[in-house]
């Protein structure tokens, strides 16, 4: 199927929306023209809404052309402010707008086409009795669902059949929220802004004046010097700082590591407001889960260097990482002091485990005579 202009007005981030604009033959210099005043107003409004409450860029799908054109204009405006944190915030707000619209989308064909063309994901859709209506490959599902630590996202609590997971529309859309955000952020990073006409320069100046100050640095929040942390943890913190999408393993490492060196759940949650998981409570739940306070009550261990390497998340320092097998052994002034969680203190001293996490309950039994503990 092809998207209509009504679809593109909703999902303005789609590459097909760019084609639409090209067809209209609009160029940057045209934007100085009075004809486009509505587009510019709407673009400014989009950014202002993102600044005011990062949760809401409204949708004006009644004015299709304005809605479609104003998105790339808004991107140019944001990029021209040269404010990194504004880029993160704007990408987030636009992603939430898309999520809201997708959850209300009545036409499953639009959803299928969007998944196929922007994410390379083949969906199936059909109504089968009381089963959820969309189906996606199991591997694609678990690659994404492992970020959500709530039990209802576990594969075992979903309906699986024929290599696919059955998902209701809301769950399906929630699953890709983060990808949409990083797609938009990537667009922002990639665009080269030409010299803007004067009327647009004015808008940029207004936006800079009204933009909130940059948030405190992650290192200030958790009160450490970057050089005290192993390169892999530093890399996650840096990505977080830039509003980038920290891959699943990076987040897992960061949370387990910080917990192990004595940071509290609160410290860690404080790092996240400008990060992918939009709602603080979600982040809190995830961190508490890793700390063993929620869900399965398993306290997760810091992944070993080899696990991180296998998952392409090792950025080893040739000298300091030389002989270690766990990020916790990275030589620094801060040493693992055990784990402090909401006042309760449990210590775990000594070298960290090098086992892959999460650690399944039963250990592998060796054959032959073996020692057992009861």
């Amino acid at each position: 199927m092809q998207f209509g202009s009504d679809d593109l007005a909703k999902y303005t981030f789609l590459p097909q929306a760019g084609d639409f604009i090209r067809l209209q033959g609009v160029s940057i210099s045209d934007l100085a023209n009075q004809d486009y005043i509505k587009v510019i107003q709407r673009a400014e409004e989009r950014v202002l809404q993102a600044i005011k409450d990062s949760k809401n860029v409204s949708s004006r799908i009644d004015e299709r052309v304005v809605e479609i054109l104003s998105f790339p204009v808004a991107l140019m405006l944001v990029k021209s402010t040269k404010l990194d944190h504004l880029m993160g915030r704007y990408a987030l707000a636009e992603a939430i707008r898309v999520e809201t619209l997708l959850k209300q989308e009545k036409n499953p064909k639009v959803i299928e086409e969007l998944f196929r063309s922007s994410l390379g994901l083949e969906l199936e859709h059909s109504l089968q009795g009381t089963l959820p209506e969309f189906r996606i490959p199991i591997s694609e599902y678990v690659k994404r669902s492992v970020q959500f630590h709530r039990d209802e996202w576990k594969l075992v609590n979903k309906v699986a059949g024929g290599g696919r997971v059955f998902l209701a529309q809301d769950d399906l859309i929630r699953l890709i929220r983060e990808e949409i955000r990083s797609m938009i952020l990537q667009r922002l990073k990639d665009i080269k802004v030409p010299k803007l006409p004067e009327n647009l320069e004015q808008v940029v100046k207004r936006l800079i004046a009204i933009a909130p100050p940059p948030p405190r640095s992650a290192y200030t929040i958790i009160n450490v010097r970057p050089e005290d942390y192993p390169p892999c943890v530093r890399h996650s913190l840096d990505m977080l700082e830039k509003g980038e999408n920290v891959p699943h393993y990076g987040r897992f490492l960061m949370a387990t590591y910080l917990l192990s060196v004595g940071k509290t759940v609160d410290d860690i949650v404080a790092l996240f407001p400008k990060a992918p998981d939009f709602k603080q409570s979600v982040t809190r739940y995830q961190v508490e889960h890793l700390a063993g306070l929620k869900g399965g009550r398993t306290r997760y261990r810091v992944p070993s260097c080899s696990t991180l390497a296998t998952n392409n998340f090792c950025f080893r320092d040739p000298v300091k990482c030389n002989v270690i097998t766990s990020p916790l052994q990275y030589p620094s002034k801060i040493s693992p002091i055990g784990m402090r969680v909401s006042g309760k203190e449990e210590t775990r001293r000594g070298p960290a485990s090098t086992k892959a996490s999460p650690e399944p309950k039963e250990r592998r039994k060796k054959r032959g005579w073996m020692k057992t503990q009861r």
Partner: protein
Amino acid sequence: MDENSTLILKRYFKEYYFHYGERIKAPSEIASREFGYFPFGGAMIRHISFKDIGTFRAALVREAPAGAYCSNSLYNDPTAEMHLKGWKSAELIFDIDADGLKLPCKKVHDVWLCKGGGKKEFGLRPETCPNCKGNRILELTWACPDCLEGTKKETMKLLEFLEFDFGISSSQVRVYFSGNAGYHISVEKSQYETLDSHGRAEIADYLTGRGIMPNFFNSTRLLPNDPGWRGRVARFIRDLPEVNTLFKSTTFEKRLSELISDFSKKQVENFMTRAVSENSVKIDAMVTTDIHRIFRMPETLNNKTGLVKRECSDNLNSFDPTTDAIAIKDDSKAEVMVDIVPKIEIGGSSYGPFRSETIELPLYVGVYIVSRGAGKFVITGQNSALVQKEAQQKVRSDN
């Protein structure tokens, strides 16, 4: 293990690789895989690679290692240190072992040993030794035909999950007897090959039912022909016998409404625990989750038994590990000083139980017992010739 026993085992392994090495097939993309082996009495040597299977077979004949392994992962550089290997993908693998089934026959055939006073006895390990009250106790597990049959049933359950839930066709699945007390299953060319260890843990949990929510069926009505766990739980409800400890009513519909409306929270939990334990697959989750593992090579010998890790993808039903996995079945005999061994079945006959006795046995039975760590070879007749030959070779190679 004493030196003579090691020499005889090594000789036996060497013979096997010399005569039957051709059976070992090259894994796909052999040059991207990590290999490893460990010599008798030595430590594991990892991070090696082979460009072709011929070189590998030759190495087996030359070294006669106690175990030979190959990664299910593919790497850019399989010989590099772990962090530099460049992981590409890995086949999905599963391990089903009799020990994980905890069958009641364990108390008949398993053996424990008190390190304090040296007391040895059949049965499950006691909390403390009845003799010396010590608690430093070792266990030696054995797998009887019931255990092996149990692991075969689990394997069939797994195959059913793989096909219906995971969409894996039987042509993608390879099934092997592990050479010890269970089965190894590997899945080739599937959508799951690029999953990291957390993704694989989700698959393992799906199979074992770990983390299943007791109320997951509350949202919409279950039907016996639903896919996945919903259908399994529904069929479990439907197929319970008329008289059972869970439901009063007899029809599926009525039982379902009992479950939803009449059961207390506790009763629902009990119900789920039973439904899960009877329908889940008892895999060793660690094996599925770990993607830096090297896995025993098919058609090589298992050092814990001297049996072959043998493929049985096409004949799982009729496959009998106690006869079909014997490495060298000829009429060689060996005298074995047996420590403590339960009744065992191998090669179509049964032997034992034995306690501290010296007996003449078919060589492959002796190899089995000695490999288990439950006896040693006595040098007489047949053995001595073997040992002398081996000892001479050793002297020669030492010089």
